[in-house]
């Protein structure tokens, strides 16, 4: 931490304020009591935990006290040696207070760091176990299918398709992980005005095989405004929502729509599958939460959606639709234009 001009401003202001107060109170108090006022001032500066400014402040306090109040007044001359003791006490108290304040501050900081490290460790280990489980599943399928094919090349297309699909799942997973890391490392979003229709289009294209023959209906007015967004991350939101629908509502059809609101774009990705259980609806966006013990997935997809939408200043929620199925709705602020 560096010393700032602010710290020194404080160390200059404190003796000035104390002198003012001492002048006001001098008809009522004895000289030793006035020294206490300066003591309070230099302690206040010392509590900020900066040695230099604290020392400066207490020295200035002593000088002011000497100059303005110690007889003969308005000189730096001291008549009685007892005041030298007062000056020494003032300086010592200020130094001790600074020392204590610095130590307490350092301890608090160390405790905070330790807590962050522990939290990161916890997150990292749960991420690691979720990821390694999630990587092993498709890898097992790939290795198994490939060795079956090596033994019996006539075993056929099902195994080959299995290999391709599982490898694609791995690719999506890695993409998710890379982008999560980017998001969590606090890297700035690459926001530019984009057409949501175009983003939905590239997401649908990338999800082609995942969607299979599933019906996808889109309802996007032609005159939707461009909105500031990070195209890669926003595409990832749609990919994750589509993958989520494909997993939890395997036979369902998909509906993607967007509407222009006052100061935001409102987007909805809905399916007509089994919908959410009540206990899931508030938790689906939690990391590593897998709704209803559904197969596959590691509960990262929707957590990423939430993180991305919130990084854009929007909100996302999941709710069951009136008929059946679930709708994920989110907003994207249009930003200052």
């Amino acid at each position, binding site marked *: 931490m560096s010393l700032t001009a602010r710290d020194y401003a404080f160390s200059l202001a404190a003796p000035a304020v104390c002198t003012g107060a001492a002048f006001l109170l001098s008809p009522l108090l004895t000289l030793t009591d006035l020294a206490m006022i300066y003591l309070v001032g230099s302690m206040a500066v010392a509590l900020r935990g900066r040695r230099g400014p604290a020392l400066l402040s207490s020295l200035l306090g002593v000088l002011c006290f000497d100059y303005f109040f110690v007889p003969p007044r308005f000189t730096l001359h001291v008549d009685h040696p007892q005041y030298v003791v007062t000056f020494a006490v003032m300086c010592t108290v200020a130094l001790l207070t600074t020392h204590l304040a610095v130590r307490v501050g350092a301890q608090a900081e160390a405790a905070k760091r330790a807590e962050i490290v522990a939290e990161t460790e916890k997150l990292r280990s749960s991420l690691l176990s979720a990821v390694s489980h999630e990587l092993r599943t498709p890898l097992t399928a790939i290795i198994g299918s490939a060795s079956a094919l090596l033994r019996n090349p006539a075993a056929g297309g099902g195994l080959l398709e299995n290999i391709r699909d599982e*490898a*694609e799942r791995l*690719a999506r997973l890695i*993409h998710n992980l*890379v982008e999560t890391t980017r998001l969590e490392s606090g890297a700035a979003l690459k926001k*530019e*005005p*984009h*057409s949501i*229709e*175009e983003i*939905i*289009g*590239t997401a*649908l*294209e990338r999800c082609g095989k995942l969607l299979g023959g599933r019906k*996808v209906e*889109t309802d*996007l007015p*032609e005159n939707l405004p*461009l909105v500031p967004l990070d*195209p*890669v991350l926003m*595409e990832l939101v749609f990919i994750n929502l589509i993958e989520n629908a494909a997993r939890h509502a395997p036979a369902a059809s998909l509906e*993607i729509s967007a509407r222009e609101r006052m100061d935001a774009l409102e987007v909805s990705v809905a399916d007509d599958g089994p919908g959410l259980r009540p206990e899931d609806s508030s938790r689906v966006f939690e990391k590593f939460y897998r709704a209803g013990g559904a197969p596959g997935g590691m509960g990262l997809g929707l957590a990423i959606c939430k993180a991305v939408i919130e990084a854009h200043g929007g909100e996302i929620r999941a709710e069951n639709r009136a008929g059946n199925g679930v709708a994920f709705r989110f907003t994207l602020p249009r930003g200052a234009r």
Partner: protein
Amino acid sequence: MPSVLVVDDERAIQRFLRPALEEHGFRVIEASSGRMALELCAAKKPDIILLDLTLPDIDGLDVLRRIREWSSAPVIVVSARGEESDKIAGLDQGADDYLTKPFSIEELLARVRVGLRHAERAAKDPEPVYVHGDLKIDLGARRVWLSKTEVRLSPLQYTLLAALARNAGRVVAQKQLLRELWPDGGGGPEALRILVHQTRHRIEKEPVRPRHLKTEPAVGYRLEEPDV
């Protein structure tokens, strides 16, 4: 038989590319480093080059620059997702197209086919008419049809389509499109996105799932390979 120089230091990639390309009638030359790529490029004069940008010795973009000093053979750069700036730099330095790892054989073959056709056509006259599904663009007459109905386009919308049709099947970088559309520097990426949006609503039956005018995220746009 056209020859393909495959530059990649990963054995696993070479192992699957060779049989896939040979099956489709290509002769495959393999290079596992940048230096080897430059040597083989000079010695064997391949018809098309597949260049991975991550090489053990020389930076892939440097290899590309040195190849371009004396060869005009089409170069397709290969790089991973998330390395969009590499792809843009590659296109800037004379690459013809790019492939994103992981890619499918179909994508690879389509890129190679388009690359070879453009190299061949560069020697001859440009194809005056582009046809893909229900879309037809007559570059000579400056007219566009969708399912036999003529489409009215603004001059800017037509310029966009024509620029993409002249490079049919190939990606056209955003920067290049901006130069062609607004030579005096009037437009920008935002204006281009709006223009693409409007054009899609004229020439696509389902603009959100375009069949002709595709987006190459973060890089540019591509008009699909024309029907043969």
